[in-house]
């Protein structure tokens, strides 16, 4: 690097910036094009989520969880429902568990497709990949709307099951989506994964060492790209995940390219899970009979429910006094935790790299700022 001591350039990337994935700000100090200091500034989208959760009834918080990671409302619902069910000791019927798996894996598909799409958009691929991803995502959203009534804010799960049962028609719809997906992935991979420009841009850029990933409690695809074989679907075996045959891809280098590839490989595994779930889905009730909507109370105590959301470990820590509202309501958002290592990954790289590293972490500001 140059030894000419030039004036450092302090640039505030965001909150109004095309590629900060929302209202996020990075205070970057640049030496020429090199990042010498980076401070993530968040909180622009803070909406008191946890406080609202403590003022709401148990059920009333469910639609609010949709707004956490607004790409993946299904998994947010599930994580919240899971922790409440743990505390209240509600047994979820089998069919509901299968429906939840289907919804969660579809959410994973759409989230990963869009995440890699936006990552490529950050690389400068002028929206082509992201629009292909949106094209496929549209089908999943159509499915979600058919089932739950809303495309993104699904508010679908309830304590002890799901709100609406899947009829044969919607199951066929889901099967059609899943059957199409590998073709889309092939097209997508052909478009990008061997592109020399992309390889040059992403390989060996933003390396996250395994130790740092563990120390910073990073989770999800970001951690797995760094070689941390940690997937809550395998660790906790929550729901009925122990019945499915699927593998978890783990990278070695932990650079941006690995994070990109891990997502694509995970999508292929998700398709596998979906095939099995759609084949094996049993009949029965979709919600536990003892679950009730009004006057729902949770016995005093606390509970932590976590699931493998597309972005990482999403957990809800709840404390109940036995009343109609939680005493404490805390969210462990994966995006927020994964974002903490941004500076370590960006230092010494260029501005352009910082942008794609941020893109490769795959954050959603609704979840970071809560």
């Amino acid at each position, binding site marked *: 690097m140059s*030894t*000419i001591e*030039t*004036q450092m*350039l302090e640039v505030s990337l965001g909150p109004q910036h095309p590629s900060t994935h929302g209202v996020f700000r990075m205070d970057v100090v640049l030496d020429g094009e090199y990042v010498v200091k980076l401070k993530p500034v968040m909180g622009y989208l803070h909406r008191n989520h946890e406080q609202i959760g403590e003022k709401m009834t148990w059920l009333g918080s469910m639609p609010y969880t949709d707004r956490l990671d607004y790409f993946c409302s299904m998994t947010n619902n599930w994580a919240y429902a899971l922790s409440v069910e743990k505390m209240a000791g509600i047994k979820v019927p089998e069919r509901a568990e299968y429906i939840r798996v289907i919804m969660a894996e579809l959410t994973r598909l759409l989230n990963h497709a869009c995440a890699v799409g936006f990552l490529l958009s950050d690389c400068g691929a002028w929206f082509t990949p992201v629009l292909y991803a949106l094209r496929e995502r549209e089908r999943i959203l159509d499915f979600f709307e058919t089932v739950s009534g809303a495309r993104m804010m699904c508010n679908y799960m309830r304590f002890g099951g799901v709100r609406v049962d899947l009829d044969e028609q919607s199951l066929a719809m889901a099967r059609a989506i899943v059957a199409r997906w590998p073709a889309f992935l092939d097209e997508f991979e052909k478009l990008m994964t061997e592109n020399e420009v992309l390889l040059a841009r992403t390989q060996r850029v933003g390396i996250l060492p395994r130790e740092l990933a563990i120390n910073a409690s990073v989770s999800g695809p970001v951690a797995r790209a760094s070689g941390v074989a940690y997937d809550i679907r395998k660790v906790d075996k929550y729901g009925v995940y122990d019945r499915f045959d699927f593998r978890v891809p783990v990278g070695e280098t932990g650079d941006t390219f690995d994070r990109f590839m891990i997502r694509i490989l995970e999508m292929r595994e998700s398709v596998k899970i979906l095939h099995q779930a759609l084949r094996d889905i049993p009949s029965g009730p979709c919600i536990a009979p003892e679950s009730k909507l009004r006057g729902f109370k949770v016995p005093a105590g606390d509970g932590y429910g976590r699931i493998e959301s597309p972005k990482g470990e999403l957990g809800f820590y709840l404390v109940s006094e036995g009343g109609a509202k939680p005493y404490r309501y805390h969210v462990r958002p994966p995006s927020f935790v994964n974002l903490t290592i941004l500076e370590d990954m960006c230092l010494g790289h260029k501005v352009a790299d910082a942008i794609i590293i941020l893109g490769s972490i795959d954050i959603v500001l609704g979840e970071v700022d809560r």
Partner: protein
Amino acid sequence: MTIVFLTLSAITVLGALLAVTLRNLVHCLLALVLFFMGIAGHFFLLKADFLGAVQILIYIGAVAVLILFAIMLTRNISGTEGGRGSLGGAWWLGVGIATTLAGAMCVFVRRSDLVSKLPYGATEEGVVKEIGKLLVTDWVVPLEIMAVLLTAALIGAVVIALEEEKKR
């Protein structure tokens, strides 16, 4: 032709004057570019098209950019020179010397018998070809020396600019 000459000369002199008087270095540079453009225009007027193009290519495309980078590397980004005046202490001396020189030159030119000389009918046809031929025949030794000089300058510039790093 006189009109064109006068216009171009006005542009050139204006550019030069601004380049040496403006306080902001970047403004100076832009004025200098105006000056270069004026000179290139003169070259075109003098039927030296090739030189005009070379002037644009090298002075505007290379030298100006080089100066630009030097400014950017040594000053703060707005390019202002700071609180102190841009002129040295003995600026009146410099202005005096320059004025004297200009006056003297004008006087000498007026006295010379070349003053009212009119041009030969120079054409631009085939000049480029001719220059090319001359460069590799009669002028081949200067050309080679020039090549060596440019290489030396290149290496020298790199070495000078990088010497600090070696010391560390």
